[in-house]
């Protein structure tokens, strides 16, 4: 249990000096309590307070950043077992496996997919995150040159996979400014790989046979002063790995067990030859506690569901996904096409737009910013009411796009129809739509046929 904002406030200087960037010590304390600020920002905090606070505020699972610049991503820092308890925080990274035995064409094709594959959703761009380079050949120089080549082809983060210290060292040196993950320190090579990671100042993964050995390795790496560690318990069977991932998350969160307080890396690519199955494993590890997920390839038909899966599971349950306010065109509408109105709660939008699309009736969908509230909630919160909707409709520019003045509103807000018509004024007519989205296709077809 962390400290409350007030408990933290009591440890702060209580001067409202504003040097932390917050207007008051209380506001700063609340941010600290929520894990959204760092104590270091307060220049006047006492050492004693610092000690008490950092103890309380250190994340139970360490956050680790791979890559640099806009391609950097962070994993770890999770605070709950179930997303509804608060939220899952840092999405796990997806990576594509590339080995030093592949020919150039294959390497280039794979990197191209890594670089270019993206999906747009709720105003976000969904992509994969890293290239996992594997020293399949066993030859350090091949590994080095693959790393070199890939460095030239992509700016994305890298995971360097080899148990050969020389190979890791060679590639690591090439890639060290990219902040790659060295994979892996094992029972056999932990001293050397640990030293290498320390020398290069990059994160290192520990790979073991089972959790007991993994804990030993983790403690060993910590003892030589390494902080950025990623763990692999070595299991490649779903049932066992699933258990390991649970034990890791529980031990870290509930028992504050430091040796397991690091993100896990998983290898669905090593668990099956069936690409479909591999995608399902990856989906499981998204939901159940992985930090990095290595895939054999990035096919669009697998990455689309996988990136959506990651987005869904990591959506903050208390903060709905929202759409951008505006006019959305569906089925290539023209000047006579119907105009429908809904709120910017992403789920509402998805469902409504999918139904309109299914109706095949060309339509304009006006999506209004209701701070992500659904129709009824937004209405009862006073955000989806006539005097808010009317200005939005008028400013949206829809009046230039259509030559009629009919707007279809959700059936659930029938009670605003009269007032909205008055507020809109002019020739605007309010048409009552359906209460359920599933009735939209039938409604639209009849509506459109009536002209």
């Amino acid at each position: 249990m962390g400290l409350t904002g007030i408990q933290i406030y009591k440890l702060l200087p209580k001067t409202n000096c504003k040097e932390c960037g917050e207007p008051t010590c209380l506001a700063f304390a609340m941010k600290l309590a929520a894990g959204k600020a760092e104590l270091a920002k307060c220049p006047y905090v006492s050492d004693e307070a610092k000690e008490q606070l950092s103890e309380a505020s250190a994340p139970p699972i360490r956050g680790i950043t791979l890559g640099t610049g806009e391609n950097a991503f962070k994993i770890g820092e999770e605070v709950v077992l179930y997303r509804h308890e608060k939220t899952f925080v840092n999405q796990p990274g997806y990576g594509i496996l590339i080995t030093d035995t592949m020919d150039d064409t294959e390497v280039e094709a794979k990197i191209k997919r890594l670089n270019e594959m993206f999906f747009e959703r709720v105003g976000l761009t969904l992509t994969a995150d890293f290239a996992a380079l594997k020293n399949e050949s066993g030859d350090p120089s091949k590994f080095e040159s693959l790393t070199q080549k890939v460095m030239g082809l992509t700016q994305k983060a890298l995971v360097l996979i080899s148990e050969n210290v020389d190979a890791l060292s060679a590639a690591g040196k090439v890639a060290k400014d990219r902040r790659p993950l060295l994979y892996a320190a094992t029972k056999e090579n932990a001293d050397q790989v640990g030293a290498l990671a320390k020398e290069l100042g990059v994160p290192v993964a520990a790979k073991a046979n089972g959790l007991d050995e993994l804990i030993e390795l983790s403690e060993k790496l910590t003892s030589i002063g390494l902080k950025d560690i990623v763990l692999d318990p070595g299991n490649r069977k779903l049932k066992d790995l699933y258990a390991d991932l649970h034990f890791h998350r529980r031990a870290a969160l509930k028992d504050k067990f430091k040796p397991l307080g690091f993100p896990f890396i998983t290898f669905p690519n090593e668990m099956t030859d069936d690409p479909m199955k591999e995608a399902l494993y990856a989906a499981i590890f998204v939901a159940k506690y992985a930090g990095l997920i290595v895939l054999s390839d990035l096919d669009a038909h697998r990455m689309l569901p996988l990136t959506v899966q990651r987005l869904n599971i990591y959506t903050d349950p208390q903060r709905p996904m929202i759409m951008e306010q505006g006019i959305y065109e569906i089925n290539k509408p023209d000047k006579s096409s119907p105009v429908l109105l809904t709120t910017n709660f992403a789920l509402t939008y998805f469902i409504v737009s999918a139904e309109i699309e299914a109706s095949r009736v060309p339509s304009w969908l006006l999506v209004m910013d209701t701070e992500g509230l659904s129709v009824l909630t937004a209405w009862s919160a006073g955000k989806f009411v006539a005097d808010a909707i009317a200005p939005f409709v008028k400013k949206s520019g829809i009046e230039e796009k259509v030559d009629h003045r009919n707007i279809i509103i959700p059936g659930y807000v029938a009670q605003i129809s009269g007032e909205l018509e008055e507020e809109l004024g002019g020739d605007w007519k309010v048409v009552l739509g359906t209460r359920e989205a599933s009735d939209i296709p039938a409604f639209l077809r009849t509506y459109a046929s009536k002209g």
Partner: protein
Amino acid sequence: MSRIILTAAIRGSHAIVNRVAKKVEEAIEKFGPDQKVELPNTGYYLPIIWGILGIPVTKLGDMPRVVEYCKNLLPPIPDEKNWLPYLGPGLDAGMATLLSYDMEEALKYLEDPLPYLPLAEDCDDEHLWLGAADDRIMRKRGVEFVDGTAPGFAAIVGAAPDNETAVKIAKELQEKNLYVFMASDHNGVNMAEQLKEEGVQLGWTTRLVPFGKDTSAAIHAMGFATRVAMAFGGVKPGDYVKILRYNKNRVFAFVMALGHVTDEWYAAAAGCINWGFPTIADSNIPQILPTGVCTYEHVVSNVPHDQIVSKAIEVRGLKIQVAKVPVPVSYGPAFEGERIGKDAMHVELAGPKAMGVEFCTSAPLDEVQDGKIELVGPDFKDMEEGSRHSLGILVTVAGRKMQEDFEPILERQIHHFLNWAEGVLHIGQRDIIWLRISKKAMEKGFSAIHFGKILHARFHSEFNNIVDKIQVNIYTEEDKVKLLLDKARTVWKERDERLAGLTDDAVDTFYSCTLCQSFAPNHVCIITPERPGLCGAYNWLDGKAAYEINPTGPNQPVKKGEVVDEKLGKWKGVDEFVYPTSHNTIQSFSAYSIMNDPMTSCGCFECITVVLPMANGVMIVDRDSTCMTPCGMTFSTLAGTVGGGLQTPGFIGMSKFYIGSKKFISADGGFKRIVWMPKALKEQLKDMLVKRSEEIGIPDFYDKIATEEDATTEEEVIEFMNKVGHPALEMEPMM
């Protein structure tokens, strides 16, 4: 008074048990003990005996054991001077009667030819009497009992004084979706015969079921009810307590005794009381009014025929359902927002330029006639187009569970109910109502009477649990409206005072609200008289009513229990409720503190109170405010901080009303702690704040509360406080 009835019942039961005992003996002699006895196509043997005693009677030889049991059950016939309470022995006698009837009817099936039309659903021209329902019928019809399509049955013994009355009673019962089971005779006539003479279709399909002309045939009604308990209640045969309880609680049945009540009828009626089925009689016999076994009264007598059905329904506690709102215009939420402009308007009612009143009150059950709608004054069609008239609507409700406290809650619904009608515009409540009726509605034949129809139907369907009868009076005559208005204003004043006088200390129960757990999984609102729900939408009375209306809903009663800390507002009962309901996250809850285990927030709060540590007070900011506040956070930042069902000391989400409550953070110093609020909010709440200022003995306290015009940072707040001499400066430190 019941002494006479029960003496008669006991006398009757002796006669019946002895008669049946003799019949059993004779039958065994004639057919032998191995002769099979059974009712047609049933797995429940003789259903009363199987259900109550758990004895499967399959052959004659099984019967003597049951006869013996009945004899043991019979109490001695009380002598005239004995004044002991009789209900217990009377019930036993009744039970012995019904067990005996079960055998008596079964013996009939040994006769040739059969007295009944077996395995038929409906009567034909030749055969009137259907006898026992087989399992197929029982299941099919029993489903209707459980799903509420048929709430229960009327077991009618005897006959109406004339055919016309018989038809009327039958029709009325059919309209209430009840089954009518008919048996026995009065002066040699049974009601089924009366109906048949009048050409009424009889049988299970029309729900008018003639069982048999003997009184014993009435047992098929009880056998049916008993089988329903086993088939649908999962009750094991022999578990008589559960069988009887199931029937009392779920099968809305009653006995209607038409004609002279014989000892035998008394005996059977006493038996039915065991099942929780009361008897309603048209003859002048003594009553058994005190409640006990049945939900309400046991025997109600001398009821006129035109009231007998509604009385029966009331006594049995049956709920009326009005499926469809009977108006000529469309009706539904879609029309709530409909506007009626001047051109489209036929007539305007009440509003700023005429008198208007909408008033709901409650009355004793026998003073309200359900469904009665009365109009005094001209109807809409007789009003000149474009004219304006006064309007008074008086809704009088009655219900066994109705409470005066619910009146305002029902009254507030009138607005929604009327507004759902197409072509009706309704604004406001109480004496500020304003209505318009559209020309289109008039074309469809809309009348003032339809207001009554709407309210009658909707109150029944929405407030079934608390309202049994609804009567509506509509006034369009000026002086009548005035009379109602004066009366209503007196009552409103009383209501408002009563509400204001409700205190936390005066009640022993609070109400919870978990409506918001869908998005704040662990949040629990505790609604007390002096602290409404943080959304401002639910006060204590609403919680109470909501619980009565929907006992499994999100508003549950929370017993305060032992006081843990009076000042903080901690009670054992409340903590014990909050802990599991918050899914084991909130251990303890203070009603009156912002610092110590404050109430959690879902996110719907009207405003947020935040401690300003250096100012030694609190600031309040409401949802409409968008500016930066002295605590360094805007409303929306604060909302993100305190929402989600977390206990956040120093912060509470709350309703605006709570600011004016005597219990407002009373553990932390209360109202005097307020140092800042947005100007708009301060002005909006001015009356309440000034009143509280006077109550705390600092009449100018209102002016000591800073707004954004006086201070935007904590330092400026302190400066302002010093300037105006704010009392919080002198108070003990908040933290």
